[in-house]
């Protein structure tokens, strides 16, 4: 009743192609943006930033990246953690080698370096697909982590083998290092999320996105009607890794500050991001956000319920948390294999008819 497309006519192809064709959706989008940019920075505190918002934003970028590769182009990847590590170490080397250059440029360059590494590791996808490709990307994951552990040049020969982000300023405010205010952490992540999401949306609704989806849905037919599979697959790997690399750089420089590669970018990270896009919805930008929010929020919410509301011991809650998260993932996959994005679509279809369902 309130939410419907009746009467919302388009007279140009530009208007028909826009991201949110419905007026109500557009309003919702701008309200969300306004709250995110104009309200939250003023009310945010350290707890909200470090346990919820900043990890959510960073994982959202990583999830968008993986969703482009797996959800849109159909190439399964278990190398997300490794590619995040490439972004993090590229950012670290750039920060320490060129201390005078703005950190924003370093983060973008780190994404670019990860894109190149990702495209190189995407080469096997031209020959193998499905589970076999997943194994090949798994090899990338272990190789990259091993590389950053083994070659001390990457961590500037530090004794601990860790990398830690020096303080860097943007417009006079620290965005990395221990004295970073919560709102600055939040804003820099929000900036990159906004830009990445817009780029991802533009690419996926246009020609490149169609060539990715064509490869995903039926690769032989795609090639016969004129899609260059080499180009489609490698661009998917490159663009995906670009986003994942930016997420890795932010995760290291802005969020954690100091990183040990095996701990921060291990195989668990690859699976976490993969779960995010499966739960959120494959082939959906909104799903990337929803999945990231779900998996970041869920442990925090469970902990809050268990410890603060029920008064259970912390270790018990921590163990329960793993069980519940696992059970919920299974529940979701059985109930709605297309993820939260599909639930959202169904809810919208229901809303169109509400309150008269017939």
């Amino acid at each position: 009743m309130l939410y419907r497309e009746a009467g919302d006519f388009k007279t140009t192809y530009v208007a028909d192609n826009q991201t949110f064709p419905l007026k109500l959706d557009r309003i919702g989008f701008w309200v969300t943006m306004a709250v995110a940019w104009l309200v939250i920075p003023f009310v945010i505190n350290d707890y909200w930033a470090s346990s919820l918002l900043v990890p959510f934003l960073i994982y959202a970028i990583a999830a968008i990246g993986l969703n482009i590769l797996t959800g849109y182009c159909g190439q399964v990847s278990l190398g997300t953690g490794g590619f995040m590590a490439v972004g993090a170490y590229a950012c670290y080397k750039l920060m320490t080698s060129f201390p005078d250059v703005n950190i924003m440029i370093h983060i973008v360059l780190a994404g670019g370096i990860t894109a190149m590494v990702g495209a190189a590791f995407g080469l096997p996808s031209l020959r193998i697909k499905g589970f076999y490709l997943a194994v090949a990307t798994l090899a990338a994951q272990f190789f990259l982590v091993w590389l950053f552990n083994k070659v001390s040049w990457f961590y500037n020969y530090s004794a601990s083998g860790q990398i830690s982000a020096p303080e860097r300023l943007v417009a006079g405010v620290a965005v990395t290092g221990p004295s970073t205010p919560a709102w600055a952490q939040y804003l820099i992540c929000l900036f990159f999320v906004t830009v990445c999401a817009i780029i991802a949306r533009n690419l996926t609704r246009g020609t490149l996105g169609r060539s990715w989806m064509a490869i995903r849905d039926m690769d032989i037919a795609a090639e016969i009607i004129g899609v260059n599979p080499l180009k489609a697959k490698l661009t998917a790997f490159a663009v995906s890794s670009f986003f994942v690399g930016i997420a890795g750089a932010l995760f290291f420089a802005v969020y954690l500050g100091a990183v040990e590669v095996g701990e921060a970018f291990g195989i668990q990270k690859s699976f976490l991001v993969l779960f995010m896009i499966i739960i959120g919805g494959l082939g959906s930008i909104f799903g990337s956000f929803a999945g990231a929010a779900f998996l970041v929020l869920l442990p925090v919410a469970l902990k809050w319920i268990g410890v603060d509301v029920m008064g259970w011991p912390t270790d018990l809650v921590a163990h329960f948390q793993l069980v519940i998260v696992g059970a919920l993932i299974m529940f979701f996959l059985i109930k709605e294999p297309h993820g939260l994005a599909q639930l959202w679509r169904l809810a919208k279809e229901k809303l169109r008819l509400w309150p008269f369902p017939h």
Partner: protein
Amino acid sequence: MNEAVMDKNAPYVTEDGRQIGGVMMDLRDITLRFGGVEAIKAISFDIREGEIRAIIGPNGAGKSSMLNVISGFYKPQEGEVYFRGQKRPPMKPYQVARQGVARTFQNIALFQGMSVLDNVMTGRMGHIKSNMLAQAIWAGKAQREENENREAVERIIDFLEIQAIRKTPVGRLPYGLKKRVELARALAAEPDLLLLDEPMAGMNVEEKEDMSRFILDVNDEFGTTIALIEHDMGVVMDLSDRVVVMDYGRKIGDGTPDEVRNNQEVIDAYLGVAHD
């Protein structure tokens, strides 16, 4: 008959007034083997500009393999493909597509996860010139190109009367419409040569009539050359200008529908011969 008509490569006008030009695609001594199996045995035939060329034959005769050779998906071990008078070098299927050869598939090969519009837009892949960066910003050339392609696609959608299902995911469509969307996707490429692999398989009479009308209209309005595989003899004889008949990988007949109909070898292949 005068000399000009006797020369088999001279342009002529058909009874219903369509212009048939010179040879567009010439297949010479094509042999295709899968291991020890010879799917196509030294077959030669040509497809002329503006004509509707049918390839018929019993199951397993090698018709689809022939189409796959033309669209570059199979590489024949022997023989050459001449396209517009030039020998075609070894090519990837997408390069063949960009030369102006489009096709549909025997088992519908639409992109299930995409809407009808996106499926048809994918057919425009060969007409894209903007780079990734421009597409990422969604401005300038990329957007202009998107709109031009959309206009071209809308003409096809209009032509095939599928406006109402433009935004429907193809997975939800009934079989007959899927076939039509596939034709739309092939047409969106604005091909010179359109290959149709059993465009009417599994359709009822009404749907077959619709499809036949569309094929004739495509040929008539866009001047597209069409090569089609079809089992419905009535349709083949009505639609096509010339027919190639294949059996067990060999060519057993080639000519106008009337010639083929009266060819003893063709009759034997279809009706069987008494073995004594």
